[in-house]
């Protein structure tokens, strides 16, 4: 959503006027006002004027102070995470003011489910009705979890598929899920959340309902987990790397591949290993004058050859008018495809995964 600068300024001015004219006195009013201004200047462009976010891409901040500790919020603002940039320029005091503003928005109880037609209204009292529980959990999940775990709990860019999680499968009435949600998994990038028991029950119900739905009906393509790709033998992979695979002709575990397993993992690493689609080729074009031009191959069909030279300039020629030669080391990857056994691939993966 795009807004004109004028509109934002007017909205801010209106907001300030309301705050200033409200019957609140002293420091609290000023702080809230400053927190609101800071929020509008730093946070609202993504999280929205009403903190509603845009799940699953951008989480809602409604009630966030009930779910995350003050320290967690401060850390997240300072260091960023996921798609969120780090706001290093904000001082701890300023972040505290933003938090006060966020807290002023916190709802007294679990946020109501989005108004879906025919959906029962979320009950403010602890509910035992499972459909209502799932519905409330769904709303909470969209706001807090879908950013990483996907809107349907089927996994996202940074969070695993919960519908196929062993932990979810072994969870009974929230005994395992609640622990992970409350304590987080700091080593894997999952924050801890301070949900109420009622909220947690809703989340647990929603996750289980998604898992049941997935096992019953989901016919779409499934995924590959890092743990699936651990069947190879490191020593055999190393021998293949240096021997039959001829990988060492171009690559070195201490050179270009140093730390490769930290840059890529799982399926992504395997795909890069089999054929790195972003690899660049060099091309040398010889003009009728005898002059040669060298650069990165940018285009090639039967009729035209194009390159980017060292200054980044694109140049192209009609093929009948020039001679050209392409140096494409990546073609060795294509040639290898007909030579691999599946064991070779698994062993090579095992070896590459040691290069952290």
């Amino acid at each position, binding site marked *: 959503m795009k807004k004109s600068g004028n509109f934002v300024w007017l909205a801010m001015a209106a907001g300030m006027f309301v705050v200033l004219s409200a019957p609140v006195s002293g420091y609290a009013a000023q702080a809230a006002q400053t927190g609101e201004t800071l929020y509008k200047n730093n946070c609202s462009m993504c999280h929205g004027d009403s903190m509603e976010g845009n799940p699953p891409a951008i989480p809602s901040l409604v009630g966030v102070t009930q779910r995350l500790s003050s320290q967690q919020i401060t850390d997240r603002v300072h260091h960023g995470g996921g798609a969120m940039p780090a706001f290093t320029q904000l001082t701890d005091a300023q972040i505290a003011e933003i938090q006060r503003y966020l807290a002023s928005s916190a709802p007294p109880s679990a946020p109501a489910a989005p108004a879906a037609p025919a959906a029962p209204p979320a009950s403010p009292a602890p509910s035992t009705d499972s459909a209502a529980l799932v519905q409330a959990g769904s709303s909470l999940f969209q706001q807090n979890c879908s950013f990483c775990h996907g809107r349907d709990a089927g996994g996202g860019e940074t969070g695993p598929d919960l519908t196929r999680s062993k932990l979810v499968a072994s969870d009974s009435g929230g005994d395992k899920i609640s622990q992970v949600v409350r304590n987080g998994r700091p080593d894997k990038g999952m924050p801890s959340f301070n949900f109420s028991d009622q909220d947690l029950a809703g989340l647990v119900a929603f996750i289980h309902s998604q898992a049941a739905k997935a096992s019953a009906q*989901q*016919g779409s*393509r*499934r995924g*590959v987990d890092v743990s699936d790709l651990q069947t190879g033998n490191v020593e055999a992979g190393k021998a293949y790397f240096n021997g039959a695979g001829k990988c060492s002709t171009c690559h070195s575990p201490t050179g270009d591949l140093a730390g490769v397993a930290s840059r890529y993992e799982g*399926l992504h690493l395997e795909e890069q290993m089999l054929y790195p689609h972003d690899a660049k080729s060099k091309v040398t074009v010889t003009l009728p004058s005898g002059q040669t031009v060298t650069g990165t191959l940018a285009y090639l*069909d039967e009729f035209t050859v194009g390159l980017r030279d060292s200054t980044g300039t694109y140049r192209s020629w009609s093929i009948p008018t020039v001679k050209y030669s392409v140096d494409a080391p990546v073609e060795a990857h294509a040639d290898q*495809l007909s030579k691999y056994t*599946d064991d070779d691939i698994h062993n090579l993966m095992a070896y590459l995964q040691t290069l952290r």
Partner: protein
Amino acid sequence: MKFSKTALLLAFAAATAVLVSPHPLNAQDKTVDAPELLHPSADSWPIYHGDYSGKRHSPLTQITPQNVHRLGLAWAFQTDQGASIKSTPIVANGILYFTVPDNVWAVDVRSGHRIWHYQYHPNKGLHIGQRGVSIYRDWLYFLTPDAHLISLNAKDGSVRWDVVVADVTKGYWTTMSPMIIGNHVIVGVSGDFDNLTGFLRSVDAETGKTQWQWNATPPVGTPDSTTGGMTWMTGTYDPELNMLYWGTGNPTPVLNGKPRPGLDPYTCSIVALNPDTGKLVWSFSASPHDTHDWDAVETPVLVDRDFHGQPRKMLMQTSRNGYFYVLDRTNGKSLLSTTFGPVNWSLGLDNQGRPIPNTEKEPAPDGRLIAPDEGGLTNYRSPSFDPKTGLFVVDARPSYGIYFAKPADGTFGWAGADYGVWSKGVIEAIDYHTGKIRWKHEVGQHGSGAGVLTTDSGVTFTGDADGNILALSTADGKTLWHAGTGSPMQSSPISIEIDGRQYVITGSGGVLFAWALPDAAGESAATTRQGN
């Protein structure tokens, strides 16, 4: 719309001129029914493959290897839609009909201007592609993403009737161009993200009532039995044998073969049916017990000529799994089975000419490297058989993919995951006696996706991966002409001749292009002036 008196008078004068012209420019009132469908005239392309044989070979000879370098744009038609054109246009009585999902256009072949546009309502079916309409008399037949068959008035695009072919909520959708045989409108279905029965249905051309239905697989839930076998590409027909030939899609669950032991009939098969009853005459399993999504729906091309010295009624298919098959189409017996590119998943052939799948190459938890990949060594874009050279010309796509499946992936729908690793496009000319490849023409990384048309003068039209339309010499595969269109062709070219001018029509992205020789344009313009 308001016309000035002058415009009306001019229009009247022009119409009168045409009426009194001693040489009518074309037969305006040709009825598209059995005679025309059995023997299409040069100015029409009345069914998906041009004729019932599926050869995609045009008898036209105005454009030749010698003059094709002067080919130019006659017109371009903008759909103004995001969807790529995957349809083959049909042409009847000077009007071209083509589609993208939810949309049909009628276009004047002479000028490329729109006559009418029909738009179906928004719906939840899968909008993966639409392959074209078919025509019978004054009526068009159009399948929608939510599996409705709609009969439109060819004159103005108004709806005559709308019948449901399959239940979209169960996971069916439809894309194919219906096949007309007599008063049968034969429609196939898609849907392999769910465990569903594939079927072929014949509908009465006038009323839309079901005449027969042939099920490719048993009802969902039959123990130890497969589902699937979708019927999403237009088949071919031999009027002498009165046999309808059709390719069927992959079994489901797609990548997990354990719940469906054995051959999985009649999935990934070529089947011969009686078009009047829907009864199966014979079947040939192109991919026995498929676990790689290799639908055998590629055109079953019908060719009558010698095979190793003996006259034969043959059926040829370059199958998505990498095999080129030549069958005796009277009985479905194999004459030749051979690969036409990298294939690493079979242990050879059984005594009926069917590949024996290597169980080691079924999708596994830690992955299996497979050639070809899911997209296949070829796919739905049409190949062409050139009678002069005896070459079967196909857009091939050598490729590798990795296939995964584990118990946690279940037994429903895809039941696994697979990823393309590497691929390229190669136009191949196959000698049907031996399967040997006479010439190859590389068309770029990841494959081109273009279909193939051969013409009687020895020109092959196709496209490359970068969006060039190519004219190749059918004899040796050398490039004769090209034009950049900005997007790779995702459909198959056609050719027709109107007013003495041969057009080649191709679609790229959301634009339909008509190509012709400039000289022919001059002659055509002169004819028109004389008429006035």
